[in-house]
């Protein structure tokens, strides 16, 4: 085969010196120095908007720096387009995959490349090469499989294979773990280690501090477009990194005072529901949440969490069982009725279900009560009342927006989540369903959201927290239910919970069975 073997190629040293990138009115990168060498994993850490994406876009030729230079193997280089970057051996794994679902893995990998056999496709040689790369880096995936058939973790492997197939020797991975299960994260890290062993240089971007500490050789922290410092992973700790990112002390584990538990506010009994694919997504779920407690639902993504949240919110019909809010049967009630009974919901798909992108922050904040007095009278909106209410919420919930009239789509992910939180908590709900409330949200906002959820617990709200982040569950929950294939495997008190037992239940082994440990 005419292609050069990636593994045999010399590694690639990258040095970015004094990079400045200005946008009208702001400096996104302010004299940033960053370098990464062959065989090394260098993490780029920072809050949303710290300038990580800008720096990566400069590296990938999507932005042209206003000042500074890029040195590849010691030679000053200009990168004008992603094509230049690819030719230099730079690969980028984006957070949102750029794959065509209706094509096979091999077709996706070769998409946009010249075929070695002129106008004819040569998928056999492509598949062969994919298999070689798979074997070298532990990236198991069937070249003939269609992308739509693959799990999220497998799709990510295809993205990495695409980059390796294009002979990338320097790979930037933009929040690659955000979409993965703990097991998949471990597999990804194994792949990353074998890549550095083969001489690749890796840039890793993540918010999750324990992951950063686990996988990195060096860590560079950006804040407000400036390089705050580069330290070796051995010198780092979660607290130190969080402090560097935010610029102040951060409380990673919030305080949780004991709260008197009240009566059952949310009851789910024998509920069955279909998933989007038409299979049974919930298979007889029973849950009770009491006022003043946080019941967390743990589980690997796709085991019925979304269906559970949606049947409570009234967005998905049940096929059996009942849902009751504050003692009232709402199994067949519409979402508006459930809200009137005191339900609030922080949806998992916040841009789809939680916010109207093209509406202003104020309109989004009013979405659930714009037609209720005092905000509306005789069918007309009362802008003075709305404005006063929104100003208060924006202040109370620390939503960073230039003004209440700014479109929601101009806000960062963390601020959109704060905006949704402000709306959902402003009614002081009796029942709160929080689905993945901090997914993809930066540390500062996560800390804030956790504090707010705990405040709400003290205020007597019954909270159902659905999360795939075990750290979050352990930090917030009073009781933990584990969901697996649409069934609750068991509910344990936080005080008695041990991670091993929860992990077993997440893999489908029931609480009772958990007492006899399976052979390792």
């Amino acid at each position: 085969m005419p292609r050069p073997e990636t593994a045999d190629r010399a590694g690639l040293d990258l040095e970015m010196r004094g990079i400045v990138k200005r946008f009208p009115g702001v400096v996104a990168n302010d004299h940033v120095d960053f370098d990464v060498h062959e065989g090394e994993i260098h993490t780029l850490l920072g809050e949303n908007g710290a300038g990580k994406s800008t720096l990566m876009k400069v590296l990938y030729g999507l932005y042209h720096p206003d000042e500074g230079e890029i040195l590849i193997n010691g030679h000053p280089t200009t990168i004008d387009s992603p094509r230049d970057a690819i030719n230099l051996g730079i690969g980028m794994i984006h957070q949102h995959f750029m794959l065509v679902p209706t094509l096979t893995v091999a077709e996706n990998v070769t998409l946009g490349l010249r075929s070695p056999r002129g106008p004819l496709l040569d998928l056999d040689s492509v598949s062969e090469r994919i298999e070689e790369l798979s074997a070298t880096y532990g990236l198991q995936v069937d070249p003939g499989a269609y992308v739509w058939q693959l799990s999220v973790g497998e799709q990510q492997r295809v993205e990495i294979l695409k980059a390796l197939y294009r002979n990338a020797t320097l790979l930037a991975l933009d929040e690659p773990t955000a979409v993965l299960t703990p097991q998949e994260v471990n597999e990804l890290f194994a792949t990353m280690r074998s890549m550095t062993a083969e001489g690749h240089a890796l840039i890793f971007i993540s918010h999750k501090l324990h992951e950063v500490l686990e996988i990195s050789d060096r860590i560079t922290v950006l804040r407000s477009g400036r390089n705050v410092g580069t330290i070796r992973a051995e010198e780092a700790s979660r607290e130190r990194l969080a402090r560097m990112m935010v610029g102040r002390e951060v409380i990673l584990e919030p305080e949780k005072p004991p709260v008197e538990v009240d009566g059952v506010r949310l009851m789910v009994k024998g509920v069955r529901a279909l998933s989007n694919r038409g299979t049974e997504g919930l298979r007889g779920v029973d849950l009770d949440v009491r006022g003043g407690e946080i019941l967390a639902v743990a589980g690997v993504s796709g085991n019925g969490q979304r269906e559970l949240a949606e049947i409570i919110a009234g967005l998905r019909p049940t096929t059996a069982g009942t849902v009751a809010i504050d003692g009232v049967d709402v199994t067949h009630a519409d979402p508006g009725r459930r809200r009137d009974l005191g339900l609030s919901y922080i949806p998992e798909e916040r841009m789809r279900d939680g916010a109207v992108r093209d509406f202003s922050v104020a309109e989004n904040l009013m979405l659930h009560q714009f037609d209720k007095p005092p905000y509306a009278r005789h069918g007309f909106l009362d802008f003075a009342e709305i404005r006063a209410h929104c100003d208060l919420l924006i202040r109370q919930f620390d939503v960073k927006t230039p003004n209440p009239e700014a479109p929601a789509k101009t806000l960062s992910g963390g601020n959109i989540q704060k905006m949704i939180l402000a709306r959902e908590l402003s009614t002081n709900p009796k029942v709160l369903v929080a689905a993945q409330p901090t997914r993809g949200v930066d540390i500062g906002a996560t800390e804030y959201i956790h504090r707010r959820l705990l405040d709400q617990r003290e205020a007597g709200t019954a909270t159902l927290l659905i999360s795939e982040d075990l750290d979050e569950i352990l930090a917030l929950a009073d009781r933990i239910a584990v969901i697996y294939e649409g069934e609750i495997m068991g509910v344990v008190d936080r005080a008695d919970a041990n991670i091993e037992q929860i992990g077993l239940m997440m893999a489908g082994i029931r609480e009772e069975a958990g007492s006899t440990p399976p052979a390792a």
Partner: protein
Amino acid sequence: MRRWAGAVFPVAAVVAALLVGGVTLALLGADPLEGFRAMIEGAFGSGRALADTTSKAVPLLLVGVGITIAFRANVINIGGEGQIILGALFATIFALAVPDLPAGLMIPALLIAGFVGGAIWGAIPGALKAYFNVNEILSTIMLNIVAVQLMNYLLRGPLIDPAEIEAGTRIPQTMRLAPSGDLPVLLEGTRLNLGAVIAVLFAIAAYVFLWRTTAGFRIRAVGLNPHASRYAGIKVKRSIVAALTLSGALCGLAGVILVFGSESHRFVTDGSSTGFTGNAGFNGIVAALFGGLHPIGTIPASFLFGALLVGANKLQRVVQVPAALVVALNGLVVVFVVSSAIWKRRLEQRYLLEDSAKELVDQPAEVDDG
């Protein structure tokens, strides 16, 4: 530039369309400059020309505002033609049934009748879309055909002017309708009538409705994100039906004005599908797009489009080009306006990127201070 981008793009689109039209004129052996001079004169050259342009713009404005309301709910109403016809039929039948009302009651009653007729013709596809997931583009187009056939049947049969039967000419038209229903002429000796005022008032009302009322808020929220709206407790299906109903109602008003603001004061058609409407149901869509899908923006947009239609007639007479060229010219404007919308969106996206980049970097700086 940024603030004016919304206005620059449609105007540039018209200029581009006229340039292509000019080339076509030259290829046909006519002098493009002379042609354009004729157009401008025909549309704006005299008080009468301006009045003609305005009259032509009135149905476009009402339809355009109606289309805007539907579009804001993310429903595409191609049924303006049918809704105009139904509005006209309801008002005409009312005027034939109760001819003795005084003008002060007659005109409001006619407007209400037309409003209801159009509303019904909008509510049908609205309900089909909301409750049975029937594509509204298909159902509204189909209902146009039904409306045309209904109109042709009624104007040739039950509603036909008895004089036509006597004379044996059988032109599909009603008798001269009750004079109390005549829309008062605003400018003596021209066709400019009360319809222009009504149309502008409804455009303003639509603006107030969309941005100041709870029902308008619902429609905009549903149009931009039905998922989030539903989850926030808004009844999405009801809002979709409401938007298409109102959209049809405004088109129905256009039908009333086409009949009772006409010089013949009859409901007349020629047997072809656009014989009565003069294509206003489709041209109104272009006016709405041209006006940035904003009720107020649709006012100048309809006027400009009205000018184009009136001017093109003059052009045809002066430079002696085939009538088809005028139709082609209109088509060109549509193509350019629609494609300019794409450019506009791209520009807006670029601004948005810049804004969010700015906002993103601004943010941690504030955290720093804290």
